[in-house]
């Protein structure tokens, strides 16, 4: 049975529970090739280590959510957005966030379990197959995620199969 995309509501609840603050979501445009160098890309695989899903958090969302996760001041996130890369602390926080987001993909009993394989942060090369899935039309959800008192950015999730 193929995995189902999470609903916008499930994505919102996941961010809210994880960050412990109000989060709102709205529809957004898909990621473009130009956005990729400033996108955190999380790669999820099945039990045979086959690519199963790819998530993308643009730099603003990665910075704001990473800061909110650690209760860090918003100023640090804004600095990272301005210079175009994540600090090591925010990058570490976003990696853990991507780990917990795995739960969005494992909501249904009976499907093969997916797990986080790799998180690519801005400045690192995105594996070609992961980039292709993140940019492709198909089974995907693209949302503007607004983290209360921090800020908003884009979250995308594309299923590979």
């Amino acid at each position, binding site marked *: 049975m193929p995995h189902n995309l999470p609903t916008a509501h499930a994505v919102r609840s*996941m961010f809210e*529970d994880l960050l412990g603050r109000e989060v709102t979501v709205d529809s957004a445009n898909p990621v473009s090739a130009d956005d990729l160098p400033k996108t955190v890309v999380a790669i999820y695989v099945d039990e045979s280590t086959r690519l199963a899903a790819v998530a993308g958090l643009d730099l603003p969302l990665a910075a704001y959510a990473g800061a909110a996760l650690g209760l860090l001041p918003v100023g640090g996130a804004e600095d990272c957005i301005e210079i175009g890369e994540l600090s090591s602390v925010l990058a570490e926080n976003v990696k853990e966030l991507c*780990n917990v987001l795995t*739960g969005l993909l*494992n909501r249904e009993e009976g499907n093969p*379990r997916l797990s986080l394989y790799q998180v690519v942060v801005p400045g690192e090369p995105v594996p070609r197959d992961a980039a292709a899935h993140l940019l492709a039309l198909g089974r995907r959800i693209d949302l503007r995620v607004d983290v209360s008192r921090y800020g908003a950015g884009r979250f995308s999730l594309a299923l590979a199969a």
Partner: protein
Amino acid sequence: MKILIADDSRVMRQIVSRTLRQAGFEGHDLLEAADGRQAYDKAMEEKPDLIISDWNMPEMTGVEVLRKLRASGNDVTFGFVTSECTKEMQEQAEEAGAAFFIIKPFTPERFAEVFAPILG
């Protein structure tokens, strides 16, 4: 009580500590371990009353730590806080002697429900 929080993510250790406080469990002595080996060593040296552990960690997984502790005769109250949750994992945890299984993301309410009988 002395509580050991084992997770390879620093921010997740902070979140577990914070959520314990938000759930009303304040004034406990909190220790941290950043991988399975450290978790086992600190469990043996520091003799915590409770261990809250991630499942996937470098060096040793959480369930390997639990099995090793039990094999050493250590019966500390031990449970998991993890982002992955399968029936097999829950069965393994139960068989190894885990007292609880909490799935990330968690809320202070969930912590209160699980830890009230343990921490009072």
